[in-house]
């Protein structure tokens, strides 16, 4: 197709429909985000008038004065801790799985794959009861434990993918020189797979950041709530405070978008090679 083509009518139609398709694609995917962003800066009356017009920061001021900041802090504490824990556990497991052949290896790997498909809705009841007995309801520790468990299987899976690309001769040379496996992981493996670690951590963090179900079941105390819960309680009443909801939504989404942006290509490569190699 590299030869110069003449613009025949059928070619024009083809190109025209491709462009129309592209515009529809962009409108469908972008418009909800656009209207939320726009709405967050608007004066939205609760009356039947569509909009009072004019730009304002009132929505953001209102959201933050009504305690939204504590949800942001709670989310950050829970998600960052769970991500660090999950990635640390996963790094050692992935190393063990990629470097050693041992009995039960495929069983471990199989249960990690199964973990990705696991329906958390089924785990809500037993975990709730166990946590209620152990005093872990309304506790960040309980939520952190759940989120760590929640992200670990997929993180291991991603990291095994990265680790198989690192030649074993690298760590064997260090072992011969007398280094322990832990030293090898810390000083040799970690720097090499750092991009993979960052991608896995980002993905795990985003999973935790948007998790709703476990938070709903385990947290009822307002001062402990995470963003998804806090955001949704503006909806609970009879009347929806749209302005506050929009502003809160923008605050909840911007970090995820900014995290995704630089990692987009890497993440796509990692995920797709993970999902379908």
């Amino acid at each position: 197709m590299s030869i110069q083509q003449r613009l025949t009518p059928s070619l024009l139609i083809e190109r025209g429909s491709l462009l129309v398709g592209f515009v529809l694609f962009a409108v469908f995917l972008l418009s909800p985000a656009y209207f939320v962003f726009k709405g967050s800066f608007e004066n939205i009356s609760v009356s039947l008038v569509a909009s009072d017009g004019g730009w304002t920061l009132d929505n953001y001021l209102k959201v933050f004065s009504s305690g939204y900041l504590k949800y942001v802090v709670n989310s950050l504490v829970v998600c960052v801790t769970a991500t660090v824990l999950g990635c640390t556990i996963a790094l050692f497991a992935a190393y063990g799985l990629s470097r050693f052949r041992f009995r039960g290896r495929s069983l471990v790997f199989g249960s990690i794959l199964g973990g990705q498909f696991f329906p958390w809705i089924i785990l809500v009841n037993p975990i709730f009861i166990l946590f209620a007995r152990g005093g872990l309801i309304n506790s960040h520790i309980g939520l952190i434990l759940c989120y760590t468990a929640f992200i670990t299987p997929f993180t291991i899976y991603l990291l095994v993918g990265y680790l198989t690309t690192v030649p074993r001769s690298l760590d064997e040379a260090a072992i011969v020189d007398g280094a322990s496996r832990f030293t090898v992981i810390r000083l040799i493996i970690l720097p090499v797979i750092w991009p993979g670690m960052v991608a896995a951590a980002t993905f795990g963090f985003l999973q935790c950041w948007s998790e709703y179900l476990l938070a709903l079941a385990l947290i009822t105390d307002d001062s402990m709530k995470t963003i998804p819960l806090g955001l949704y309680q503006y909806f609970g009443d009879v009347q929806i405070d749209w302005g506050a909801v929009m502003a809160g939504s923008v605050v909840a989404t911007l970090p995820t978008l900014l995290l995704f942006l630089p990692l987009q290509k890497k993440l796509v490569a990692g995920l797709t090679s993970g999902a379908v190699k």
Partner: protein
Amino acid sequence: MRLSPGARERLTIFWMLFPTFLVIVGFYIYPTLYNLELSFTDITLLKLRKGGDWVGLANYWEFLRSSSFFDIALNTVFWLTAVSVTCRMILGLLFALLLNASFLKRMKLSTLARLILLVPWATPPVVAVIAWRWMFDPTHGAINSWLLSTGLISDPIAFVSNLSTVWPAINTIIVWNTTPLVAISLLAALQTVPQELNEAASIDGATKFQEFRFITLPYLIPTLSVLTLMSVIWTFNNFVYVWLATGAGPGTFTNVLATEVYLKAFVDLRIGYSAAIGVTMAVVMALFGALYFRLFGVGDMQEKVG
């Protein structure tokens, strides 16, 4: 104490996998078994400390014979899972083919397209539901004001509370939020299709459709089958979209299995009964997975995933 190199190696493996073992046993296997046990009891949130009494299969019979069972099953299998997965796959495939078109690539639109796909993908489900409820809103929503201004409708439609539009509305939210992953995975698979094959076919006079059907599609089948399996399991068990969009309403019109599990446990406080619904869901998905593997080949899939 001195250890032989072999023993020391085994000890290293043990310590490396021990935390993962704890996670899998503590948060996956044990709660699953515990849930199974709960499903045979009449435990409620009110007698949590005391525990429930053994009732055998009573919870299962009650659920399977309840008047709402058929509606919930139909909602979950058809409206939630079948419709949204079908739409997601078709739309994802269309997006991938569109973004792979050489004309759009030459116009440097593919980088822009990736960024556009990123927006719904990076949006948390809670925000996705909020965004679309804002779009669907009868008084402020963009869709109603557009339909009104073009004269297609004369009165605003309350999409989320109207019985005939509520399922399409929920499905729109799910498709918007989840199609990017499908599109991006398929786009990656499309890039593995050898370009020479398409050129040879078009020289031999194949139509665009034939090229797609006989050259492109076979390359996409492995990706498509894995994505479909993942999407079905994930959607069947999904709680968040229906719960946040409608709260299983109006009434119980959009109630699905996942919301029923939550409602029974945390509104009716009947943990045991709710656990039985959860076990039923797990059994259905396990059967589906087994059937799927049989139909599409186990060895093939393991090779893809492992």
